[in-house]
């Protein structure tokens, strides 16, 4: 590729490089008319670039003729895998939607329950004359104690299982 076959027709090395890059990089239809005309006139005058054009054309034709075909089994297996995966993803999306909807429902229910309990405590405090500083503590305890109890139970169960396994 380094021998550009300089001729005595006033061509420079750059002309050969330009012609060869055009031949390699552009299909004939992609070249602007002016470049195409220049290339044609260059090829008429330059034997080595004409040979390069011939070789490039042969290589490109050979490249395009190399047969690589996917067989029917591969295509069918791929389509089946894709369909199965699509179904898995759809089921996962549905589960996620269900979890999301459940979270929203729980949050709303908790908000309403909280409000109702708060009002209930207020009413109870008014009736029983409990000191004002005490009842908020009882209210918080009402919410925290079940979670604490559940955590302690779960921890105890986990420790028991770990001991049992070891």
């Amino acid at each position, binding site marked *: *590729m380094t021998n550009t076959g300089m001729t005595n027709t006033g061509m420079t090395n750059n002309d050969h490089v330009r012609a*060869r*890059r055009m031949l*390699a*990089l552009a299909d004939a239809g992609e070249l602007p008319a002016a470049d195409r005309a220049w290339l044609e006139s260059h090829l008429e005058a330059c034997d080595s670039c004409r040979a*390069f054009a011939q*070789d*490039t054309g*042969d*290589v*490109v034709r*050979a*490249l*395009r*003729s*190399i*047969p*690589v*075909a*996917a067989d029917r089994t*591969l*295509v069918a*297996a*791929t*389509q089946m*895998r*894709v*369909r199965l*995966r*699509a179904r898995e*993803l*759809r089921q996962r999306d549905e589960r996620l939607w269900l979890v999301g909807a459940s979270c929203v429902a729980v949050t709303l229910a908790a908000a309403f329950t909280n409000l109702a309990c708060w009002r209930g405590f207020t009413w109870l405090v008014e009736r029983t004359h409990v000191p004002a500083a005490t009842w908020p503590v009882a209210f918080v305890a009402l919410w925290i104690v079940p979670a604490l109890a559940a955590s302690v139970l779960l921890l105890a169960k986990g420790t028991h299982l770990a001991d049992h396994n070891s």
Partner: protein
Amino acid sequence: MVDEKSEIAQGLRRRDPDLLDRLIEQYQHRLLRYLMSLTRNRATAEDLFQETWIRVLERGRQYDGKHEFSAWLFSVSRHLAIDFFRRKQPASLDGLLEDKDKPMDPPASAEPSAFDLVAHRELGERIAAGLDHVAAEYREALVLRFQEGLSLEEIAVVTGAPLGTVKSRVYRGLSALQPWLKGIRG
């Protein structure tokens, strides 16, 4: 009227299995040929073929419908191939992972034959064999350009290389294959 690219993008967002069936049928040969050019191994190429379509299903929302689907598809398969070779054979796709030009492997021997001159199939086989000796990044550029018909700009998108580098790879790749052609001609 919705053009084909937008239609594909919408279908991929819906994870439409019928659309994927059609795309697999439509791009089967092109994708497998491209993967063969990357891996030079049919079994690996077939594995990656299946993985590519699973990835297309999972990441289909990333296709924007503005570029050619084939370019995006090749880009997805290219990433999978690179990941595969990083895991299995770190050295074999070095050319695709790096952006430097590598020396080409010249044909080991040229055995001219008069019969070869006229045997078109033989010519294809020789060039196919020549491809095995061309650096991976040149081989990829040649396959995308001349077998898959992608433009130089689309190849730049698929490979993530600058346009100038893509031009250089196509030019050098063609030049690297010419000795194989001459081997046939004697």
